[in-house]
């Protein structure tokens, strides 16, 4: 594609197709669906962080008023190990099944042990209290150090570390090790005029979507099942649920509701298999909705991480060597995002000599789920904090220091492949010139800079474009609209077909109606599903050209598509007035049938996304309280299809990152019980905590997409952790290396300063 492309509708800011439904309360979310005769389900959860289940007695519960079915782990098949593919990022079907409902052992406080379906939720809850579970409590492993200690209690007695040079000889809580490296590390450090060596730590945090998980399941006597649920990927719910229940994929229809936030946390299943199993047993539809407390105790979270970093710099600020040892908490089952973390940790920079080791570690906490750029925020919090400290010590402007090391097109990423066109330099230059950066700081305020990076993925997508008889357009796709993607799809279809945006409607369809598509995640929808929509629109154009050519008794190569109509090519001698989409749609029935365009693909050419964030923060020297005074997010979007929703991604990611940096964390009791499982004490940012979040969209087109799109959804959460920490460190006059930067922690640091 060429940068000179002039767009008709792409880059404008129309109202999203689903907008009115969502501002009037008409939109139907996960908990808003019901079926005749529907039962209400509830889950019995483990009161222990780690225990053996000796026995479960359900008779009393089954006999309780209104109760129609009870299920335990014994009602589910044993699932064979096998990698889960497609956007979820790590994980194994057997572990997934074990997380959905415990068998033999509970691995975290809140782990599902049994589920009940009754005529009312009150009856279901009452019945839970009648289920007798005999536990043999085991010591809980709640930190990376405890998990990796000699003779640590084993969370999975059969777990052998993978990725070791020599096969592991004994089980441990270390699920896997990943290593990368290049060059001569010690020679690199020997060259260094300055070495920064520190340990950086980030806490367990939750995605914090406002809509709790919810679903309605209905199982038929013919073993055909239906699931209505809020998810980032109906097809993934279908494959995971089918696997957990041991059913053929084709017997399960998944209807995605509108989704009230996900951020990666709704790319797996929790309630869905339980609801269907309860429906199968009771012969009735079953609705299950989590409470907020259940969401905190049993879903998400994002991995806590400890990163030991060592970076060497020459006097003029070139990175001479870098080493990182990264341990991520996987939760109770293997599969933290430490893999992507190891690839991200030094990704923004040219480094000849480096060594990276990543460790996936089991602890007695909920199984980590994907959270926006999984693994990257923890990794770049470490690197960007060290870069900031180096800039300070070398007396080099922090943006200049990054420019001296920044990767650009043609450089090999530390994880191997060469970068195509990327926007890191453009973002850094924009930041240096930004009024936020050039204006003087207020008294006491610290200013922080940080770089963010995420790969962005492609994966599989399908789309259909239907041309209605009056020339209006219906786009059918399979990706739940989590942040305005219907608008981007409509814009790309309208641009390609040359029709008005308003004439395009976009339908997010169920698994029996739409072609297969992987999750709404990995920043892939506007890129990959958008590509499918463009391809399907081109399919329509080809059909239009061929029909017009026949109509004009000429060859297809004698005609061309221009401004939403078929024209004879310039100089082609045919008596013909151009035929618009409307003209051809009106006569479609008489020209071989309806105009229906299709595309299904596994998108190639995803373009990496870089960002730069600026943060001004003020520390109250007496209380340690931090106030974010100004924040600017600059990011390369490739091409912003709907700029307002791109800005929205930058702003939302920035604020989630600010929360991660300042106050969000799981607080655990010594027994492994989360003590702040609610929005009152798990402190996500509220409106009054924040300034406006300034944004600047950089557009370095991605050649891998017909309109130059890169994903934008994930990169925004990567840089804020270090941007905030660097600003706080500057304001406090002491280097902060452990998140969150809560008042007690900052005050403690001020004391030591």
């Amino acid at each position: 594609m060429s940068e000179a492309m002039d767009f008709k509708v792409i880059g404008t800011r129309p109202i999203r197709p689903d907008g009115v439904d969502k501002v009037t309360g008409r939109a139907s979310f996960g908990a808003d669906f019901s079926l005749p005769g529907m039962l209400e389900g509830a889950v019995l959860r483990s009161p222990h962080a780690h225990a053996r289940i000796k026995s479960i007695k359900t008779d009393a519960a089954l006999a309780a008023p209104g109760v129609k079915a009870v299920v335990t782990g014994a009602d589910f098949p044993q699932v064979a190990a096998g990698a889960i593919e497609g956007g979820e990022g790590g994980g194994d079907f057997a572990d997934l099944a074990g997380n959905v409902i415990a068998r033999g052992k509970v691995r975290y406080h809140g782990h599902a042990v049994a589920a009940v379906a009754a005529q009312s939720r009150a009856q279901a809850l009452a019945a839970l209290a009648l289920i007798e579970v005999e536990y043999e409590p085991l010591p809980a492993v709640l930190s990376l150090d405890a998990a990796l200690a000699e003779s640590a209690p084993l969370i999975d007695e059969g777990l052998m570390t993978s990725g070791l040079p020599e096969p592991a000889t004994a089980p441990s809580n270390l699920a896997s090790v990943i290593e990368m490296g290049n060059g001569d590390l010690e020679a690199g450090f020997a060259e260094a005029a300055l070495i920064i060596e520190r340990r950086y730590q980030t806490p367990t945090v939750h995605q914090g979507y406002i809509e709790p998980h919810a679903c309605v399941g209905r199982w038929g006597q013919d073993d055909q099942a239906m699931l209505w649920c809020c998810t980032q990927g109906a097809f993934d719910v279908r494959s995971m649920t089918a696997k957990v229940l041991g059913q053929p994929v084709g017997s399960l229809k998944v209807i995605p509701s509108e989704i009230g936030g996900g951020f990666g946390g709704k790319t797996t299943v929790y309630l869905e298999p339980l609801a269907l199993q309860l429906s199968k047993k009771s012969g009735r539809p079953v609705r299950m909705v989590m409470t907020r407390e259940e969401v905190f105790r049993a879903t998400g979270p994002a991995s806590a991480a400890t990163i030991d970093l060592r970076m060497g710099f020459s006097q003029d600020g070139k990175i001479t060597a870098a080493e990182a040892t990264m341990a991520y908490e996987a939760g109770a089952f293997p599969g933290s995002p430490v893999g992507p973390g190891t690839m991200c940790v030094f990704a923004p920079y040219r480094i000849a000599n480096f060594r990276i080791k990543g460790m996936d570690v089991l602890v007695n906490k909920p199984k980590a789920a994907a959270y926006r750029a999984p693994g990257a925020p923890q990794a770049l919090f470490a690197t960007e904090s060290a870069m900031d400290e180096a800039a300070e010590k070398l007396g080099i402007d922090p943006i200049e220091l990054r420019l001296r090391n920044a990767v650009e097109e043609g450089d090999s990423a530390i994880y191997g492949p060469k970068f195509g066109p990327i926007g890191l330099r453009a973002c850094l230059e924009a930041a240096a010139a930004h009024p936020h950066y050039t204006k003087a700081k207020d008294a006491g305020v610290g200013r922080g800079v940080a770089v963010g990076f995420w790969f962005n993925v492609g994966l599989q997508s399908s789309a259909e474009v239907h041309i209605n008889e009056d020339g209006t357009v219906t786009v059918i796709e399979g990706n739940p609209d989590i942040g305005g993607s219907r608008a981007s799809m409509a814009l790309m279809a309208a641009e390609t077909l040359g029709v008005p945006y308003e004439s395009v409607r976009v339908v997010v369809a169920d698994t029996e109606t739409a072609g297969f598509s992987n999750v709404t995640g990995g920043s892939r929808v506007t890129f990959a599903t958008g590509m499918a929509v463009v391809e399907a629109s081109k399919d329509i154009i080809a059909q239009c050209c061929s029909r017009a050519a026949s109509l004009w008794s000429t060859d297809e190569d004698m005609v061309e598509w221009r401004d939403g109509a078929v024209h004879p090519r310039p100089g082609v001698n045919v008596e013909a007035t151009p035929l618009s989409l409307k003209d051809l749609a009106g006569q479609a029935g008489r020209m071989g049938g309806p105009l229906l365009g299709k595309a299904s693909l596994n998108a190639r050419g995803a373009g990496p996304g870089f960002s730069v964030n600026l943060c001004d923060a003020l520390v109250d020297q007496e209380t340690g309280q931090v106030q974010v005074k100004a924040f600017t997010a600059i990011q390369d979007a490739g091409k912003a299809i709907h700029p307002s929703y791109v800005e929205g991604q930058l702003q939302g990611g920035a604020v989630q990152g600010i929360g991660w940096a300042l106050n969000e964390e799981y607080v655990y009791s010594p027994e492994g019980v989360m003590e702040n499982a609610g929005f009152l004490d798990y402190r996500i940012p509220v409106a009054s905590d924040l300034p406006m979040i300034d944004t600047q969209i950089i557009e370095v087109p991605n050649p891998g997409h017909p309109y130059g799109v890169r994903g934008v959804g994930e990169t925004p959460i990567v840089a804020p952790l270090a941007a905030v920490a660097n600003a706080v460190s500057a304001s406090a006059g002491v280097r902060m290396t452990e998140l969150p930067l809560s008042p007690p922690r900052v005050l403690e640091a001020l004391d030591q300063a």
Partner: protein
Amino acid sequence: MQGFAYEAPSSLDALRARLAAAQGAGELTQVLAGGTDLLVQMKQGQRAPGLILDIKRVGETQALTVDGESLTIGASVPAAKAKAFPLVAEAFPGLAHAIDLIGSSQIQGRASLGGNLCNASPAGDTIPALIANGFEAQILTAGGLRTLPVEAFVTGVGKNALASGEVLLALKAPVPGPRSGDAYQRFTPRTEMDIAVVGVGARLTLDDAGVIASARIALGAVAPQAFLAEAAGAALVGTRGEPEALEAAAAAAMAAAKPISDKRGSADFRRRICGVLVKRVVAQALERCTTGGAK
């Protein structure tokens, strides 16, 4: 929520009668005003009453009046209404601010000062402000009425001085005279939607020479219940609020504080923040003595 019966008597007599009957029948009765604490506690199974008595339809609990000398705030008057009442905003800006810190705008539409007080959370935002301002609790008893100073009304974590069959009816305080000002500040990690890690209320009155004649300092979230830190007040009387006086008041408050360590902050952190807030709150109240406060 565990099952219960719901009744909403519409007069003082009906309320008194229903309470007596419930007491006789040994029904576990729970009075409901705004319900913003109560419903959460019932949902979480911390309270399981057999009878809910909604007092919002009893006129006396909705009173919001000034009779020359004193201000009366009915026990079920919602926070939003109380903080907007002109006299509260003008003569009790500290209390108004404390009320404004109760939960969200939505919570303030329902939550009452009476409920906040009866819930007796150590961190309840209005309680230190009520104590500092010398509010007394008017209590409906089987026989009639009795009154208690607010500092005596709260007796422990979630505990109050109401005997079985008694109900908090209203809160009453003298309208402050000239050269008087109050203030309340709390410390929380977030700006809103948070529970006080420490809360400090103050009411100061100056003599015509500008010397502090009386000072009431109340502390929240640093002991099982909010309390009047008499020594802290005493450290200010006779001074003009000079830095040394503020330091002395802060030191006295920190000495009186008996905080615990929990998920919201360690004991040491709380004690330290308590000292910081006392200085800030006294300075603010002092300023109001001269610039505003009582009309």
